[in-house]
């Protein structure tokens, strides 16, 4: 375990270097604008943010700050530090992502299980077709359609984020975000459940008189969950990236929105800060998934 943790550090370092190079390779800078600044004013601002220094020097300066835990000031939002922006955006993205994940797991696993139990029936076919639709339609189509229907026409839910202070503002974004994942998880669960239900030990349990519900709960669900669990890594990544579009459409001030804006604004420190944050997050999550794997299936050998 410790070895795995140590191995994560060079990965993180590589991510930082690559991100730094990429961010500076993009044409343009944080202070470029159509309303061009007078030459000496522009030079002064570049110097104030050390952007006139050679790249290796800027990198060393950034790393020194990083080791102190300082992600630097945002180049675009001059009243805020990067840490403050991440601290403001992450809880919101986390809530959004967690709720979407929870919804996806709940609905996905149940519908996949039901479809597996009723394999070949009309219900099975309907569920799987819906799943296919959910995977195919892009988020940026679903979101505005849902807003138009449920917020503007029917006025059941709010269209934006900043007006409401209750739970209602979460409903549309969470559903939009969860839909593709529900679809994937349903299909995965169904396939995996069908496999497991065909196993010998299930036949044994059935011959012993156990009903379907009990079989699922006690014997089938855990092993059937293995593929779903493996999918959790990519699922979380998909939700993280999915938040970017959802946040943009609903005007949600989460990390995804800051990331996109940071990239478009050439806000070097903000982009780097979020990349490092996400990288550290994903690396730790992978570690956690590895550990969970061992708990769920005792057949997996511990290294």
């Amino acid at each position, binding site marked *: 375990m410790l070895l795995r943790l140590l191995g994560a550090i060079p990965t993180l370092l590589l991510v930082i270097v690559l991100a730094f190079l990429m961010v500076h390779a993009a044409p343009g800078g944080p202070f470029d604008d159509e309303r061009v600044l007078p030459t000496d004013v522009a030079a002064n601002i570049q110097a104030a943010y050390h952007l006139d220094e050679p790249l290796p020097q800027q990198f060393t300066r950034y790393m020194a700050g990083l080791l102190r835990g300082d992600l630097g000031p945002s180049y675009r939002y001059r009243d805020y530090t990067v840490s403050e*922006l991440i601290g403001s955006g992450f809880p919101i993205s986390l809530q959004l992502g967690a709720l979407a994940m929870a919804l996806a797991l709940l609905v996905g696993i149940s519908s996949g299980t039901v479809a597996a139990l009723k394999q070949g029936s009309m219900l099975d076919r309907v569920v799987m077709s819906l799943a296919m639709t959910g995977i195919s339609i892009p988020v940026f189509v679903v979101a505005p359609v849902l807003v138009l229907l449920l917020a503007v026409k029917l006025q059941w839910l*709010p*269209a934006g984020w*900043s007006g409401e202070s209750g739970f209602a503002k979460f409903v549309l974004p969470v559903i939009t975000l969860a839909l593709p994942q529900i679809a994937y998880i349903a299909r995965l669960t169904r396939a995996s459940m069908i496999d497991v239900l065909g196993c010998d030990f299930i036949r044994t349990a059935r011959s012993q008189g156990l009903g379907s519900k009990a079989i699922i709960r006690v014997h089938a669900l855990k092993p059937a969950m293995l593929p779903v669990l493996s999918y959790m890594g990519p699922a979380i990544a998909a939700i993280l990236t999915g938040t970017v579009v959802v946040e943009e459409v609903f*005007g949600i001030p989460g990390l995804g929105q800051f990331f996109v804006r940071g990239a478009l604004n050439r806000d070097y420190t903000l982009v780097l800060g979020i990349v490092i944050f996400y990288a550290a997050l994903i690396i730790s999550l992978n570690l956690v998934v590895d550990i969970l794997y061992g708990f769920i299936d005792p057949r997996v050998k511990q290294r």
Partner: protein
Amino acid sequence: MRSIRRLLFFLVLSGVAACGGSDDGRESLSVLNRGLNTEPESLDAHKARSLQAADVLRDLGEGLVSFTSTGELTEGTAESWEVSDDLLTYTFHLRPEAKWSNGDAVTAEHFVFSVKRLTDPATAAFYAQFLVDVTELRAIDEHTLQIMLKRPTPYLLSLLTHPSTFPMHPGALAEHGDGFARPGKMISNGAYVLTDWVPGSVLTLNRNEYYWNNANTAIDEIRHHISSQETAEYARYRAGELDITSSVPTDNFEQVRRDNGDELHIAPYQNIYYYGYNLSKPPFKNSPELRQALSMAIDRELLVEKVTGRGETPAYSWVPPGVDNYEPTVFAYAPLTQDERNQIAQTLYAEAGYSKQKPLRLELRYNTNDTHKKVAVAIQSMWRDVLGFEVDLINEEFQVLLANIRDKEVTQVFRSSWVGDYNDAHTFLSILQSQNAANVPGYASEEYDALLLRAAEQADLDRRRLYMEEAERVMLADHPTIPIYFYVSKHLVKPRVAGWGDNVLDYHYSQHLSLKAAE
């Protein structure tokens, strides 16, 4: 298994609990919800730059001079002023009742302190050279401020409405340093105070009880909601969550117009949409005939009527109409019909050495945007029909385009625009001076520079105007750019909002607005 289900249940529950807030009995407050299409990069007036930041800053602060809702200059924190006979010294008398939001009096010294900080290189202000014509600010006493100028600057009063000239509270800066522009720390002298700022979401402003004109401020709370997507903002307006939008979707504009009638406010706006030539390289470097031909072959009336269709006006001049004390000069060929212009364009194109056998090879660059694409495609077909060549359309991400324009290596024709900083022709004419960094085509005309210099030296406003109009005539004849159209400002405003004034600067101070009681 049970534990996993419990965990999921707990997650959902915590999600619900964590975000369940409540409107804490603020029903008695009048609230205005405005859309803002970009987050202000700073509410420190010296670190701000964008038009959107200026919109919020105008609600929070006030300068010596201000504007009415219809865009006329009016007294701000200064209740009166005199100008010396040589036009080089302005003396402002501050209102004795002008106060900061913590009760302190606003004094002349606060203005001096502010301008010192604006011009200090350590502040790294974008508008550091905004008051370049001012030699000195002096606080004669608590309520008297003198501003000394290098040369007569008729637009000085207009400059003094800009947020970068607003006073600063030395105490707030001493206590919080550069981080003073945050809720709870910021002390403002305008109609409102910053009470909350959720980055990326909403800025909440509440009434400044100490503002000298607080009795005439009708609305208690202003919320600026950041809504960068036009279509999403429109959805929120229709759902009743926004009272005022910052813009209107360009797609289905006719539908929007039909659905919203009087709520749609379109007004002329001091902003020019143009194509610039890269004058440092062929084909435009030494080819005035070609530059003129391309400009003449564009049917601007058709463009604004059929392609953009929101009430824009075709641009035959550089300075927009409606600017103070100025009559824009127009192209010599403006009175001709489009057919006549096309014929002349074809002749000029041939004179420049191009023909059907040897057509012009050209690239047109613009930043990714629906409107820019539509305009570019329309112009591409106009050039094809009239002159017989096919221009390559290249759309680039905004920052990439800006970098290319600056480098002058790959650009040939590129899309750009310019908004006036103050209500005077100088803000438009000055950017084509040879030394100006904003001179993106790279226009260098000794005659033009000389005429503008002469204009700046004039004490007589009429003579000054004549020099500027002549300068514009000289520049237009050289065709360093292709002026295309002048923008319009577009907003949707709910019927319950009163006091909205359309003006050419597109400034809408919240303190001028009020809410009609529900019927």
